[in-house]
């Protein structure tokens, strides 16, 4: 059965986008390496990370991007199109943190005949607040088929 589809006309500026939590435990750091194939030791070797001046290992770009993309693609449905994503690694998600990912709608307009929506999406944790702010541009289908 097809999943429900969000349409451009149904989006309200200011609406919150439901997200999810992920606990950063050892198993998650291994999943991170498996899923990203990023073998740079700063993401799995505490001694390497500390020698570089970090407090501990921290989750990598591939993992953070996968989480942000999940927030967006779960929200936009099968027919939505993520046209652009910009995100910054300002602070770290480390073992012991609970990473919370969510977002909100910041703008909605038509451009070149298509229904565009702008989102703020982010990852945060209790220690540092927002660690990974992101902005996304999504094209959604319209109810009239345009």
């Amino acid at each position, binding site marked *: 059965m097809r999943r429900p589809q969000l349409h451009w006309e149904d989006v309200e500026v200011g609406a919150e986008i439901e997200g999810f939590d992920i606990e950063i435990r050892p198993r998650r750091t291994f999943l991170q390496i498996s*899923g990203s194939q990023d073998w740079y030791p700063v993401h799995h070797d505490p001694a390497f990370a500390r020698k*570089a001046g970090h407090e501990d290992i921290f989750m*990598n770009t591939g993992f953070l991007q996968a989480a942000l993309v999940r927030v967006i693609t779960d929200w936009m449905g*099968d027919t939505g199109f993520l046209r652009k994503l910009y995100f910054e690694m300002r602070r770290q998600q480390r073992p012991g943190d609970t990473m919370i990912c969510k977002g909100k709608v910041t703008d909605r307009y038509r451009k070149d005949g298509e229904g565009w929506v702008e989102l703020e999406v982010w990852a945060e944790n209790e220690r540092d607040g927002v660690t990974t702010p992101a902005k996304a541009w999504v094209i959604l289908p319209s109810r009239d088929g345009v």
Partner: protein
Amino acid sequence: MAERYDIEAVRQKYIGIEIAKSSGRYPVEYDAIRRHCHMADDNNPLFLDPEYAASTEHGAVLCPPSGWLALYFASLGPWPAVFEPLLPIVPAPGKRIVNMNQEVEWFAHIKVGDHLSVRRRVADIYQKAISIDPEAVWIVAEAIITNQRDETVCAIRNTLLFHRTPEEVAAAKETTP
């Protein structure tokens, strides 16, 4: 005495040059997508379920719109890797790396079975101090990823910070007259 790092010479030599060009050895595959989704508990059937994906307008499993995953299929995934993502070609005083940001623009979906290629170039290089390294170097790299029909599917721009360890910074201070 350590040789002085000449940021202007590095900028002149490397900005604008193509640092890597490659085509993925393997097509976009189900299992790499599955592993990618698993790390973030992403259960989207469009990325995981061939039967479901075939019932949609897409007709096939989509690759999640992650620049990281697109780069993986275009070059980094197979072993041995065609190139490392960390731009070792550009000299910098420090070898420790942190990815600071990424911008990905999408122009088309990537589907299972697609063959991806990538061209990467250095867009900018500059020096800006961070708390642990006054001589940290920042490198902006761009990547254009195309599919088997030579269509551009995405453009990626990211900023990498290269820094020294605190020990290396302290050692450099001792050798500076």
